[in-house]
C-alpha cells in the first residue's frame, strides 16, 4: 500500500538492501521440551533493523511459538534483555549492522534467572532484590509546603543511577550472581545508590544495613561485566564502589 515512487526519482545513494541473516536461537518450550535446544532461522533484514525486529519477523512469519518480552522498542522499558552473541543486550537497541552477520547470530535467555520459555525468564528474584534495598525516598523531618530545595550539583550527584530501567542486563551478566543467586546484584545496588546519594534522603543507615549484608556490596568482585552490559550507559561498577566507600568511611 506504500506509495509507488518512480525509479528515476530515487537517487542511487543509500538505497538499503535486505540481506539474509541467520539467527541461532536457544529455544525452550515448557509445554513440549524437556531440554533447551538451538535452532536456526534465516530471514532477510536491512542493516539498520533491530534484532527485535528480526525476532518479531521470525515470530510473525516463521514460528509463532517463539516467545520473548518486548514493549517500547527503543531501549526505554527494559523488557527485552537477552544474550546476543554471548553478551547481554537489549534486542531493541542492537542493530543488525553492528553484528557480524557472516556467522549465525546467537540469541539466548539471560543467565542466572530461571528460564520459563525461550527468552522469557522468571524476573521475580530480580525484583525481589530491588525491593529489598528500600528503593524509595526516606525523607527527613516534616513535609515542606513547596518542593524541597536541592542544588543542581546535589542533583547531578546521583543522576547516573536514576537512568536505570531495571532491565537486568547487569545483574545477569555478573559472574558472582550466576553462581550465587542470593547476591543482591548490581541493579539493586544501583537503585540503592540513587537514594544514598540523594541529598534529600535520610535513609542512609537503613539502606546501608541491607547492603552491608553477607550478600550485599561486598560480594562484588569488580568484574565490570555489569558496566559493559548496561544499555543505559550507567557506570554500574563505579556506583557499587561508591556505595562500598560510603559504608567504610561512615561506619568504620
Amino acid at each position, binding site marked *: 500500500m506504500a506509495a509507488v515512487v518512480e525509479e528515476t526519482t530515487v537517487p542511487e545513494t543509500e538505497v538499503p538492501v535486505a540481506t539474509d541473516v541467520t539467527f541461532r536461537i536457544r529455544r525452550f518450550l515448557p509445554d513440549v521440551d524437556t531440554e*533447551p535446544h538451538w535452532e536456526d532461522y534465516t530471514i532477510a533484514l536491512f542493516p539498520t533493523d533491530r534484532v527485535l525486529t528480526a525476532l518479531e519477523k521470525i515470530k510473525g512469519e516463521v514460528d509463532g511459538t517463539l516467545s520473548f518480552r518486548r514493549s517500547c522498542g527503543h531501549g526505554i522499558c527494559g523488557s527485552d534483555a537477552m544474550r546476543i552473541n*554471548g553478551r547481554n543486550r537489549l534486542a531493541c537497541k542492537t542493530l543488525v549492522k553492528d553484528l557480524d552477520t557472516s556467522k549465525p547470530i546467537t540469541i*539466548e535467555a539471560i543467565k542466572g534467572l530461571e*528460564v520459563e520459555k525461550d527468552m522469557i525468564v522468571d524476573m521475580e528474584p530480580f525484583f525481589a532484590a530491588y525491593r529489598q534495598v528500600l528503593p524509595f525516598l526516606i525523607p527527613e523531618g516534616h513535609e515542606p509546603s513547596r518542593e524541597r530545595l536541592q542544588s543542581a550539583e546535589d542533583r547531578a550527584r546521583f543522576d547516573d543511577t536514576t537512568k536505570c530501567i531495571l532491565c537486568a542486563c547487569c545483574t545477569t551478566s555478573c*559472574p558472582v550472581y550466576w553462581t550465587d543467586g542470593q547476591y543482591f546484584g548490581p541493579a539493586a545496588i544501583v537503585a540503592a545508590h540513587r537514594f544514598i546519594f540523594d541529598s534529600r534522603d535520610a535513609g542512609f543507615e537503613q539502606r546501608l544495613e541491607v547492603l552491608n549484608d553477607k550478600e550485599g556490596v561486598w560480594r562484588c568482585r*569488580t*568484574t565490570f*561485566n555489569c558496566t559493559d552490559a548496561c544499555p543505559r550507559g550507567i557506570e554500574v*561498577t*563505579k556506583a557499587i564502589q561508591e556505595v562500598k566507600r560510603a559504608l567504610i568511611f561512615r561506619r568504620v
Partner: protein
Amino acid sequence: MATTTPVGTLYRGGEGMWTWVLHRVTGVAVFFFLFVHVLDTALVRVSPEAYDLVIATYKTPIVNLLEVGLVGAVLYHALNGLRVILVDFWSKGPRYQRQMTWTIAAVWLLVMVPGTYFMMIHTVEALFGSTP
C-alpha cells in the same frame, strides 16, 4: 524441578571478567603452593638433609619452570590486586580500569622477561654447560 542444566554459550565478558578469572585462578594456585611451601620449609625442623633433599627438587629443570610460573602467577595476582584496590578506592579507578589492565599486562611482561632469564639461566647452564 531441575531437570537439565543450562548449556548456553560462554558469556563473552570483557577484560574485567577475564582479569578476575585469572586473579582467582592465580590466587588459588598460590594458596596451594603456599601450603606445600610451608610444609617443605618445615623440614628444616626435621633435619638439614631432609630439607636439602627437598630443596634439591626445586633445582630440577621442570620444577624450575614451575617456579617461573609461580612467580608469574604471584606477580599477576599482586599487580591485578593493586588494580582492584585502585578501582575500589580511587574515584576515577572504575573509569580507567581498562587502561590499568593493559598497564599491568605491560608491567608483567617487563618484569617477567628478564626475570625468567635470571631464574632460568642456572638451569640452562646446568643443562647445557656454561658458555665460556
